[in-house]
């Protein structure tokens, strides 16, 4: 059989790194093919090369047996290769059909396009109303828009980059059904992921990358996850040690009846949020993104303040009116979701970025920045967290997302906080480093710090948290003890389909999520 897509000896270098080193692989028609690898393994580069968004330095790409000579995304689309990016490219203020019309050819008639969208979404079990505006859609629905946009071109090969990172467990199940149906109709699917369980469930074949090289191929359904993980990581996986929590008597963070209206039109109002975090425990906040996490986190960090000062208490002090710097004086440290531009200043060096929050820790003296201290501080973070960087002089923007995350987490932990707020601690961080970051969070809490982790990854929360809160449409659930709950219960709370909220939200936006 002629493969749908064949790569021969693809090489791609960037200054200082070999992103792809002699990669060969082939994908058959109707096959669901996983590309597995840690962050920085070269997956994204390879996908860009396949899609034509980047050019290989050497090597050949064949589609249906024909060599692709001059490659670019337009050529890809003409050949029937479509890609769903991890970060969607949708215009939020216009409707689904208008968004799609922008990227399909001959889309003069919106009504007939809407009809085709309706038909496709029906056929593949992804119900979507073509006339709704994108900003009203949940993340899962937005992804459907992206996939339908691709399907309209009747693709022969569909590339999905980490498609489940933003979905609820229930939405993942739906997505997999759609993908299987597509594959059964002969469309090849290239599925990029670092989540082993998903790959094992969905994919027929897997190519594993590490450091830009193919380190193995496997039939995931017949391979244990341990073997796959070894191919990805190349060494033995670190084991997590989670000892029982030792909660302090008094809570370090108290939130009482916190309600706010969102500042942006697309934000979520918080409604009567109350919870505690004690020293010595890790509390997780689960939820599909866009349900009020951003607002809550900004209120906790002090980037946004609240008029009722005792709505938030930190170590007993009413703090809702305090700014970020004053809260840091109370012992707060914070790792934001956005690394570049919020947690770090992109064009600044790492030592300068160390000063950003560590200026009370000896890096500033008499109003002057002590470059040596700051450099040493940055160096110690780089060493301890194995940040891949050319020393404290490299700029934040030159680091990969995962490495910068390690640096920011390391910096905030070095501040020895009493309360550590962490949003998406391991987003885009590779398996080995994720385990290290999680272990560090656990160790911090066991040493007495209160840790609040906001994450969309249930696996992560279940791995490290002692108690779980679920946020949905701006409401925060009562705490669940990790050992007494399961993914099912949390998943239902995330979609607002639990007993209390079912009436409120069951008929609304989330009706399509189940």
């Amino acid at each position, binding site marked *: 059989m002629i493969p749908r897509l064949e790569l021969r000896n693809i090489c791609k270098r960037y200054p200082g790194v070999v992103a792809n080193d002699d990669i060969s692989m082939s994908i058959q028609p109707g096959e669901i093919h996983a590309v597995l690898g840690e962050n920085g393994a070269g997956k994204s580069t390879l996908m860009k090369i396949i899609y034509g968004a980047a050019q290989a330095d050497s090597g050949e790409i064949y589609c249906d047996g024909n060599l692709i000579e001059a490659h670019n995304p337009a050529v890809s689309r003409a050949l029937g290769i479509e890609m769903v990016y991890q970060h969607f490219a949708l215009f939020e203020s216009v409707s689904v059909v208008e968004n799609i019309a922008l990227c399909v050819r001959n889309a003069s008639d919106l009504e007939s396009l809407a009809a085709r969208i309706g038909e496709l979404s029906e056929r593949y079990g992804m119900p979507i109303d073509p006339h709704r505006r994108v900003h009203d859609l949940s993340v899962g629905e937005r992804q459907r828009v992206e996939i339908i946009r691709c399907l309209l071109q009747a693709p022969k090969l569909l590339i999905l980059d980490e498609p489940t990172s933003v979905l609820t467990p229930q939405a993942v199940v739906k997505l997999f059904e759609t993908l299987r149906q597509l594959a059964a109709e002969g469309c090849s699917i290239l599925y990029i992921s670092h989540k082993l369980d998903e790959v094992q469930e969905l994919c027929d074949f897997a190519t594993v990358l590490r450091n830009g090289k193919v380190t193995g191929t496997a039939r995931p359904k017949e391979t244990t996850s341990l073997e796959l993980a070894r191919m990805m990581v190349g060494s033995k996986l670190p084991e997590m040690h989670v000892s029982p929590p030792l909660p302090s008597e008094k809570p370090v963070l108290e939130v009482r009846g916190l309600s706010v209206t969102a500042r942006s039109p697309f934000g979520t109002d918080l409604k009567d949020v109350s919870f505690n975090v004690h020293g010595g425990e890790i509390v997780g906040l689960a939820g599909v993104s866009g349900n009020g996490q951003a607002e809550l986190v900004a209120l906790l960090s002090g980037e946004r303040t609240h008029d009722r000062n005792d709505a938030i208490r930190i170590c007993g002090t009413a703090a809702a009116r305090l700014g*970020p710097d004053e809260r840091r004086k109370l012992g707060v440290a914070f790792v934001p979701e956005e690394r570049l531009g919020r*947690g*770090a200043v992109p064009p*600044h060096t790492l030592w300068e970025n160390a000063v950003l*929050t560590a*200026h009370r820790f000896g890096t500033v003296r008499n109003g*002057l920045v002590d470059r040596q201290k700051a450099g040493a501080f940055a160096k110690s973070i780089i060493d301890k967290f194995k940040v891949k960087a050319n020393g404290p002089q490299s700029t934040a923007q030159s680091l990969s997302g995962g490495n910068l995350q390690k640096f920011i987490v390391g910096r905030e932990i070095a501040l020895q906080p009493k309360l550590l707020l962490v949003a998406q601690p391991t987003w885009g961080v590779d398996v080995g480093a994720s385990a290290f970051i999680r272990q560090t969070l656990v160790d911090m809490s066991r040493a007495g710090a209160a840790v609040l982790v906001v994450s969309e990854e249930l696996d992560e929360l279940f791995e490290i948290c002692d108690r779980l809160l679920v946020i949905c449409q701006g409401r925060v659930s009562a705490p669940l003890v990790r050992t007494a709950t399961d993914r099912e219960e949390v998943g239902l709370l995330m979609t607002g389909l639990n007993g209390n909220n079912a009436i409120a939200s069951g008929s609304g936006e989330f009706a399509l999520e189940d």
Partner: protein
Amino acid sequence: MRVGAPVVATVLTLIVGSIFFAALGHDPLATLHAFFVAPLNSMNGLSEWLLKASPLILIACGLAVGFRANVWNIGAEGQLIIGAIAASGVGLFWPDPESMLLLPLMFLAGMAAGMAWAAIPAFLRARMNTNEILVTLMLTYVATLLLSWLVHGPWRDPAGFNYPQTALLPVGAMLEPFDYSYRLNPSVFITMVAVVAMWLFTDRSFLGYKMSVSGAAPLAARYAGFRESAAVWIGLLAGGAAAGVAGMAEAAGPLGQLSPQISPGYGFAAIIVAFVGRLNAFGIVLGGLLMSLLFLGGEGVQMTLGLPSALTRIFQGVLLFFLLAADFFIFYRLRRVREKA
């Protein structure tokens, strides 16, 4: 690359300048020589060069403090004029013209007035989020008209044959030149101090660090708890103070009185100097020397070759244009995109 851009821009400006000269019927090489080399051939030329570079560098240092934090003070010209007015007011009307305190008082008056003028846009921006570019620019016209009213009206020299200018400042209110054959005076020391202070502030101080965070990543500044309003105030006041002092030094230095021609556009040219100098203290020194040479050369060719005085402004504009273009091509790449079928 960032350092290379001003060099590329300067070279391109010279090429375009040559084309201009050729189009005006002059030998390009000879004109370039007359423009850029001849002015520096004498002691007087060197004195004038530094004299004109000094206010440019001083103001650019102040402005760059704000520019680094994305605070865009475009109204240094107005702040300079207000500084000159306040300093001259003190010099003209202080009861004891012999006082040793007169010059320091004028210095403080010029600085305070420039800061006060810059405080208006700072307050409006910090409190009401108005655009400081517009407010500073418009206040420049207010300052110009205020100066015009003063020298045409209440402060006009009664013995001045109706010229719109004040009486000459008393000797005790003047910055005495190093040598009476030339005009260069000790105000260059003020500029030198400002350059070092600006370097210390932007490169070494924590406050300067906070300002650069505000400029490069406002969300990170908020994350770290650095107040945006502090960056706005410091940025604008630094520019206002520098421009006000420059205004004082002009009035008490080469001019010796107030007239509508208090500044040949130093406040605006300093913006270009700040950018050519990459908002860096020592870069600004080089940028100021280049810009000063453009002023001098423009005057020179006006006198020797009869070329229009607008040439100076054209050179300034072309230089800024090429600088911004060079920056653009450092950060972006042009690519032909084929129309999709």
